[in-house]
């Protein structure tokens, strides 16, 4: 009986029986714990106000109706218990097919060492293997995989971090074109992209961004010719020299007739490398991923037609969500694979090495370290496929936060694992050519590829706060003006909910295997704490909360931890219920993740509650003032005399 609950397919059946997609039945409604009805309504209203995409493809319409965003709702203390069922989006038969078709890929990437000797160009082989068309629609000779399937299919190539950088970048552009491209654009590019004749890549970031604008690459519209003229240069672009390439360029544009900062916007362009004025610059001498070709690209008076604009001109920021969502998800996959590889190598090392007659694997320190790393990898993987599953299962599901969190968590943990290895292996680990050294280099490179982790953290917190702000606005206004709303404040006084002892009525334990009851309890409490922290931050700072970056960084970590707990619990519960191999250890993993996560969330939320005078932020901010004034380290030498 219980096991049926966990399968996505069963959920599909239930919806079909009801026959209505958009109205949600009572049972499927998200559970509210601490919100009053008014706030709920506000949340629902804001949800409904979101512009729906104009036309949905056949594929989209087969999906289940949109659910409320999962992690965003954590910020207002609401959980969607249904989503504790780990999504099974690939049907059984499809899965068998998929696994069959992945065999050659796996073989190739495992035997790559010998293949390299043949001196055959890798791009040619990738083309033959169909790596360029994994996520392109079948109409255009692609494989037509969805999110989960294409991620699974790109797992073999992601084992080679260098190759995966360029392949993932290609797939991101394909994703974007699928979603935003006009039929003409799809007609024009997708076929070539799917077959690998044209290799796409993002060119977004710049070497030195300007002080005032977003980008120093500028495009202007010439009304007389009806064309755009693009000028500037992009950096850190993963290229495949010698091939025809398609660059996805974000450029600064100025709306006609709107002067000044108001009319400033960004526009997304597709630029063919064979166009006049496009020039590959020098290769960056990067720290890691040295085999990947990371270059500068120069655009010199490139003439672009109207049809090379993706989406609406000047409105690129609106589409950046789709762009970053895809690149975050696909970027995380490279991280997961690298982390897995590092962990496997380390496990191998500890088993084979013994020091002073003791095997490394028997030392407690080593064991704890290995298990920590394993927990991280487990959580990363669960988050990645949960997010992809949400995208596949529900129609235009909002996974902005989920994807950002997946990348944030993956990269941070990856770097953690890579540096922890140094301590275990010792000085040998940094000799050039060692696997640990390469792993560390690649991990560091992945951390800087695209957006930095700090901005990603800010993004997570801000997105959550934006959503929560819309839902909580009325309550926050009352709390901030207590004398005008005595009733509200009185209610708060009577409230016995505290950060150390949050009250929850979510009953998440009902939706997972009973062995994970404790883990579910951890999630419940953490969500409640997150909601309390958010409400407190709003009450304390009002909309100045956006300036409290240190607290927001904590909030981001809290949200990340909760999502990791959620995804791991969901996955472990499914595995155990259907009896996958070693599922009991998965239970253990999920329990470990949850109990550690609960403590972390508790600590962070207590820090937020303490405020900047208790949690040391104030001291640090004050120190930084002198630091900038002295332009560096300010204390004098410890042995200085004063008299």
């Amino acid at each position: 009986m219980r096991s049926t609950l966990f399968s996505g397919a069963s959920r599909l059946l239930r919806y079909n029986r009801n026959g209505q997609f958009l109205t949600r039945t009572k049972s499927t409604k998200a559970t509210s714990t601490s919100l009053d009805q008014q706030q709920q309504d506000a949340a629902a209203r804001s949800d409904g106000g979101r512009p729906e995409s104009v036309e949905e493809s056949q594929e989209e319409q087969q999906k289940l109706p949109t659910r409320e965003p999962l992690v965003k709702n954590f910020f207002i203390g609401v959980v969607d218990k249904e989503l504790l069922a780990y999504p099974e989006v690939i049907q059984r038969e499809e899965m068998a097919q998929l696994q069959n078709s992945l065999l050659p890929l796996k073989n190739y990437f495992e035997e790559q060492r010998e293949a390299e000797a043949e001196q055959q160009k890798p791009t040619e082989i990738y083309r033959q293997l169909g790596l360029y068309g994994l996520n392109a629609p079948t109409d255009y000779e692609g494989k037509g995989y969805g999110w989960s399937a294409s991620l699974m299919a790109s797992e073999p190539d992601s084992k080679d971090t260098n190759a995966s950088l360029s392949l993932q970048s290609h797939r991101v552009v394909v994703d974007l074109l699928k979603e935003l491209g006009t039929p003409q654009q799809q007609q024009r590019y997708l076929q070539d992209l799917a077959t690998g004749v044209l290799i796409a890549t993002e060119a977004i970031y710049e070497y030195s961004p300007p002080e005032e604008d977003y980008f120093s690459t500028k495009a202007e519209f010439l009304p007389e010719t009806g064309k755009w003229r693009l000028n500037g240069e992009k950096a850190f672009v993963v290229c495949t020299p010698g091939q025809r390439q398609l660059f996805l360029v974000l450029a600064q544009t100025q709306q006609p007739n709107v002067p000044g900062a108001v009319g400033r916007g960004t526009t997304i362009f597709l630029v063919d490398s064979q166009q006049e004025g496009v020039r590959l610059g020098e290769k960056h001498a990067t720290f890691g991923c040295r085999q990947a070709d990371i270059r500068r690209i120069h655009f010199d008076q490139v003439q672009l037609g109207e049809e090379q604009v993706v989406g609406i001109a000047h409105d690129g920021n609106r589409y950046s969500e789709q762009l970053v969502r895809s690149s975050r998800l696909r970027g995380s996959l490279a991280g997961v694979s690298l982390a897995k590889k590092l962990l496997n190598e380390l496990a191998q090392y500890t088993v084979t090495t013994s020091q002073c007659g003791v095997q490394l694997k028997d030392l407690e320190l080593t064991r704890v370290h290995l298990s920590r790393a394993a927990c991280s990898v487990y959580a990363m993987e669960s988050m990645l496929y949960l997010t992809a599953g949400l995208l596949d299962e529900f129609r235009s599901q909002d996974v902005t936060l989920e994807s950002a969190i997946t990348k944030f968590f993956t990269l941070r943990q990856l770097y953690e694992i890579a540096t922890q290895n140094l301590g275990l292996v010792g000085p040998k680990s940094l000799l050039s050519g060692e696997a640990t050294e390469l792993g560390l280099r690649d991990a560091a490179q992945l951390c800087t590829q695209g957006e930095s982790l700090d901005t990603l953290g800010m993004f997570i917190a801000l997105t959550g706060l934006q959503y929560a702000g819309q839902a909580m606005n009325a309550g926050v206004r009352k709390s901030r003006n207590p004398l005008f709303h005595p009733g509200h404040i009185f209610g708060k006084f009577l409230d016995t909910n505290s950060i150390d002892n949050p009250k929850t009525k979510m009953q998440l334990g009902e939706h997972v295997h009973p062995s994970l009851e404790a883990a579910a309890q951890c999630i419940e409490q953490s969500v409640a704490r997150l909601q309390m922290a958010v409400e407190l931050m709003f009450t304390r700072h009002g909309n100045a909360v956006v300036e409290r970056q240190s607290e927001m960084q904590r909030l981001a970590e809290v949200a990340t931890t909760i999502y990791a707990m959620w995804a791991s619990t969901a996955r472990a519960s499914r595995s155990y219920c259907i009896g996958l191999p070693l599922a009991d250890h998965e239970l253990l993993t999920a329990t470990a993740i949850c109990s550690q996560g609960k403590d972390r969330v508790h600590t962070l939320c207590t820090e937020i509650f303490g405020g900047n005078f208790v949690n040391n932020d104030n001291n640090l901010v004050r120190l930084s003032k002198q630091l900038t004034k002295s332009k560096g380290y300010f204390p004098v030498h410890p042995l200085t005399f004063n008299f």
Partner: protein
Amino acid sequence: MLRRAQCLLRLHSHGRQSVATLTRHRSYSTDEATPKQNPSANPNQRAQKPARNLPAVRNPFAAAQDRTKDTYLTMVEIFQERDVHRRNHVEFIYAALKNMADFGVERDLEVYKALINVMPKGKFIPTNLFQAEFMHYPKQQQCIIDLLEQMEDFGVMPDYEMEAMLLNVFGRQGHPLRKYWRMMYWMPKFKNLSPWPLPDPVPDDTLEIAKLAVERMCTVDLRSKVTVFQTSDLKDAIDDTWIVSGMSAEQEKLLREHSRQKALYIEGPFHIWLRNRRINYFTLRADPDTQFLAQLDERQLDDDDVSNIEVPFLGRAPPRRHNQLGKLRSVHQQDDGTILAICATGTSTKDSLLSWIRLLEANGNSSIGEVPVLFRFTSTVPAKAEEIEGPASVPATSNARSSKDESPSSRRE
């Protein structure tokens, strides 16, 4: 007497460079250090009491020809060796303190130590509780307290050797000791408290001081750059002098964005004091951009509204709550005007200021050539000071004679 002084002088100048100084340093705390061994060292106690009507002691300092530290120390030494009783030594110390500035030794710890050394060791140490409580030898104690007070006023920090000397003279219960300990508690704390430490000694060159002054004022903006121009770089400058100009990248931007129709003002001279030196400086000012400032007025914001928080995509700078376009008020945009640059010139004349504007134009601020620049040689500072402190306490500057002297600069091409 005179010959002896010369003789000693030579001896001193000899010893200055070498070990002699060292040995003298050491000697203070050790010679006659045993207080109770020699109770009859000063047999004639009544000689300590000054005669009321007579001039206490001939002031040798007023008569000295060569006013250097060496002469000063020689005179102290002569006094010490003149007779065993050291009659009138309190008066001598007061006289010596008064004349320190003339000899330029008022910031020299060694000199103060030499003066303390004049005091007999051991004699003034109280031997019982009552003596200790009722200020044994009050006049002598007060004299040394005044000496220490003068040190404090001049910011001369005592050292541990001085403590030893004072202990030998007055014992642990002496009031000068208490004063000394209090000084040693506070003075090290105050010594480095200034956020704008000056070099010690402060350079004597006006250009160097002007540089320090402008640098100090420029600390409001960390990106400020202080440049020294020479007017001789310009073809037809009348004054040949230097100009210390301070301007930051932010100010350059404000100047670039300044409307070509609105005038800029050169105002001054204002004063800034560095220790005991005054520097005149001038500002290049624009009228406040009231529209912009009103736009940033925080009172119009609703802090409570959390329903539209902006989220930046793609690694853009995080938003600020006030005006989401990211425009911020810089420290230079004050309510009463926007300060675009400051300068100090060697002559503080109108011509040197004109040269300043032209040099700014030549050094990357081309837009200043298109803006009318007005001179407004009015300083409110002397007037204000007069208001506060009474007339004639701050000297009026040379340019302050006509306070409404506002003349458009005739720009020579």
